[in-house]
C-alpha cells in the first residue's frame, strides 16, 4: 500500500471489438508529480484516463491509483481521485452551489461540510456571484471553472484532467496552469492529457507520447525535444529572392535540413541549442546582409513531434474517441 507511485499501470489494453484503443500501455507517475499524456485525437488518451479513473474496465493489464487496484478496489480509488472529463460534466439544471454540494455529499461529506466546502470553492473560483444561478446559463469559462472546483471538492490526492485547456482562451489557460502549479506545490499528483507539446512542457515532469494506443516516446520535455531535434528557428525574409541563400546559411548553423515555404518567404530549421542557436542564426543572417522581417524560436508542434517519432504525419483518427465520448 505504501508506494511512492501514485499511478502505476502495466500492459493496459482496451479493445472495442477488433479495434484496440489501448495496446499495451505502461504508466508510472511518482506521488506529487505531473505527467502529461500527449497525443492526437484517437490516440487512446481518454481511454487510458477512463480506465485509471475506474470508468472503464481494461481488456487486459493491471493498474493501481493511490495504491489501490482500479479494477477490484474501485471505491477506494474513487475516494482519492478527482476527474475533470473532456467536456465539463456539471448538471445543467442545478445551480453552481447545488452542483458542488451534491458532489461533496456523494464524496460522503456531511451536508454541512459539503455546503461549507461549496462556498469556499465558489469563492476561490470567483463564482460566488453566479452561485445561485442554474449552470445552463453559465459561459464556457464558468462551466470549466465549476467543473474544476467540483473535481477538487474532496481534496483529491490524484487529479485526472482530460484535455483541461481545450477550448480555453490563452489567458484562461495561463490561469489554469497557475492553479495546477499551486496544487502540485501542495502535494497533488496530476495526470493530464493534452494535444499541445507546449502545455506538456510547461506543466509536466514527465511526458508520455501516445499514438494508436501505444506509448511511442517518454521522458521529460528536454529529452523529448532532443529526440525530435529540439526547437525550430523560423526566418521570414523581406525578399523572396533571398530564400536560397538563407537555406545555405542555415545549413551551416542549425541542426537539420531547412524547410522552405516560398510564398510566405519563410525558412524553418531545427536547432538543439535554443536561444544560443537563435542568436547564432541572427548574427549569421545579419553578417550576410539579408533583410529579415521576422525571426523566431518555437517549440516543435505535436505534428512535428509525430513526424519525427513515427516518420508519418498524424493519422487523424477521430472515430474511436468520439465513439465513446
Amino acid at each position, binding site marked *: 500500500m505504501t508506494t511512492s507511485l501514485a499511478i502505476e499501470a502495466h500492459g493496459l489494453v482496451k479493445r472495442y471489438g477488433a479495434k484496440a484503443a489501448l495496446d499495451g500501455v505502461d504508466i508510472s507517475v511518482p506521488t506529487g508529480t505531473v505527467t502529461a499524456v500527449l497525443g492526437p485525437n484517437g490516440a487512446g488518451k481518454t481511454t487510458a484516463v477512463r480506465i485509471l*479513473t*475506474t*470508468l*472503464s474496465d481494461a481488456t487486459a493489464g493491471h493498474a493501481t491509483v493511490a495504491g489501490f487496484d482500479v479494477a477490484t478496489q474501485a*471505491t477506494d480509488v*474513487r475516494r*482519492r*481521485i478527482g*476527474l475533470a*472529463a473532456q467536456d465539463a*460534466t*456539471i*448538471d*445543467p*439544471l*442545478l445551480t453552481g452551489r*447545488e452542483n458542488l454540494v*451534491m*458532489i461533496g*455529499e*456523494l*464524496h*460522503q461529506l*456531511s451536508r454541512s461540510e459539503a455546503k461549507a466546502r461549496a462556498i*469556499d*470553492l465558489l469563492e*476561490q*473560483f*470567483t463564482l460566488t*456571484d*453566479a452561485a445561485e444561478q*442554474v449552470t445552463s446559463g453559465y*459561459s464556457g*469559462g*464558468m462551466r*470549466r*471553472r465549476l467543473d*474544476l472546483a*467540483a473535481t*477538487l471538492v*474532496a*481534496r*483529491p*490526492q490524484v487529479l485526472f484532467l482530460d484535455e483541461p485547456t481545450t477550448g*480555453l*482562451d490563452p*489567458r*484562461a*489557460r495561463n*490561469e*489554469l496552469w*497557475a*492553479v495546477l*502549479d*499551486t*496544487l502540485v506545490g*501542495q*502535494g*497533488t499528483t496530476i495526470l493530464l492529457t493534452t494535444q499541445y507539446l507546449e502545455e506538456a512542457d510547461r506543466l509536466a515532469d514527465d511526458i508520455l507520447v501516445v499514438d494508436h494506443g501505444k506509448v511511442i516516446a517518454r521522458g521529460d520535455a528536454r529529452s523529448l525535444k532532443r529526440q525530435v531535434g529540439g526547437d525550430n528557428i523560423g526566418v521570414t525574409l523581406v525578399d523572396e529572392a533571398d530564400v536560397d541563400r538563407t537555406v545555405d546559411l542555415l545549413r551551416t548553423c542549425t541542426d537539420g535540413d531547412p524547410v522552405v515555404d516560398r510564398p510566405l518567404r519563410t525558412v524553418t530549421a531545427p536547432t538543439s541549442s535554443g536561444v544560443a542557436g537563435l542568436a547564432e542564426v541572427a548574427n549569421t543572417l545579419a553578417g550576410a546582409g539579408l533583410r529579415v522581417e521576422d525571426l523566431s524560436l518555437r517549440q516543435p508542434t505535436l505534428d512535428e513531434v509525430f513526424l519525427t517519432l513515427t516518420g508519418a504525419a498524424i493519422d487523424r483518427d477521430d472515430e474511436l474517441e468520439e465513439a*465513446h465520448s
Partner: protein
Amino acid sequence: MSAPTDTIALSPEAIDSGAVAPAAAEELHAPRGVLHDVWVIARRGLIHMKRQPEALSDATIQPIMFVLLFAYVFGGAIDVPGGGNYREFLMGGIMAQTLVFTAFGVAMSIANDRKNQAVDRFRSLPIAKGAVLGGHAVANVIKSLLPIAIMSLTGLLIGWRIRSSVVDAVAGYLLMLAFSFAMIWIGVLLGSLVATPEGVQGIAFVALFPLTFIASTFVPVSSMPGALKVIAQWNPITTLSDALRELFGNPNTPVRPGDPWPIAHPVAYTCIWIVGILVVCAPLAVRIYSKTISK
C-alpha cells in the same frame, strides 16, 4: 470578483490557503451508506422536476386535458355497458395511462444523464452501488404522487367519487404506487436501450402511447373488433384501469361469460404483472444499464 467571466480568474495566492490541498489519509470520509447516496441523487431528480416544468406536463397538464377531452367531448358518445356514469368510468383509465407514462419520465432522465455525461461524473465518485438507479427510482415514485393527486382532484371536480370502503380505496392508491414503481424499471430498460432523449421520445410515441389506447382506458373493451379486443383484454393497462374502477367502486365493464381470466380478476392480474416486471425486468434493466454505462 471583478474578473471577466470567461477566464479561470484564479490566482495561486487565492488558493494558497490550503483549501484545495489533497486530503491526508485520515481525513477521508467514511461511507454514509446507500440510503444517504440514494437520497442525494433523488433530491437532484426532484430539483430537475422543479426546474423543468415542461417535462412534467405529461404528468400534469396532459392528463387534465385528456380528462376534459373525454369527459366533455367524446364522453357523450360512449356508453358504459351495464350503465353508469362515463366520467366515473373514465377516471380509472386516465389514472392508469398517467402511471404508464412514469416509464417515459424515467427513460428521459436516464437518457439525459448519459447525454450530459452525468453518468461518468457519478461513477467517478465513491458512491454506493445502485445508488444512481435507486435515486432515480425514489425521485420518480415521489414524482408520480403529483399526477395521482392531480388526477384525483380533477376527478372530484368533474363528479368522480370514491364509492368503496376505505380499505379498498387505500388498496387502489397502493396499487397505483406499486404500478408506478414497476414502470420505473421499464423506464430504466428503455433509457438504457435507447441512448438519446430524442429516441426515447420516439419510442414512447410509437409504443407506449398506442398501448394505453388499446385498452379499457377510455372505452369498454367489449366494443373493440376481434384481434384488437384480445390484445386489449390481456393488456395490463386494461386490467389496471378495471382494477382501479373496482377498488374505487366506479362503473366498470361487466364481466361476461367467455371473457378471459384477466377481465374477471383485474386486481390479481395487474399484481401478477407488477411482480413479473419487478422480478424479470428490474434485474435485466439494471444489468443492461450497467453494461451501457461502463463501456
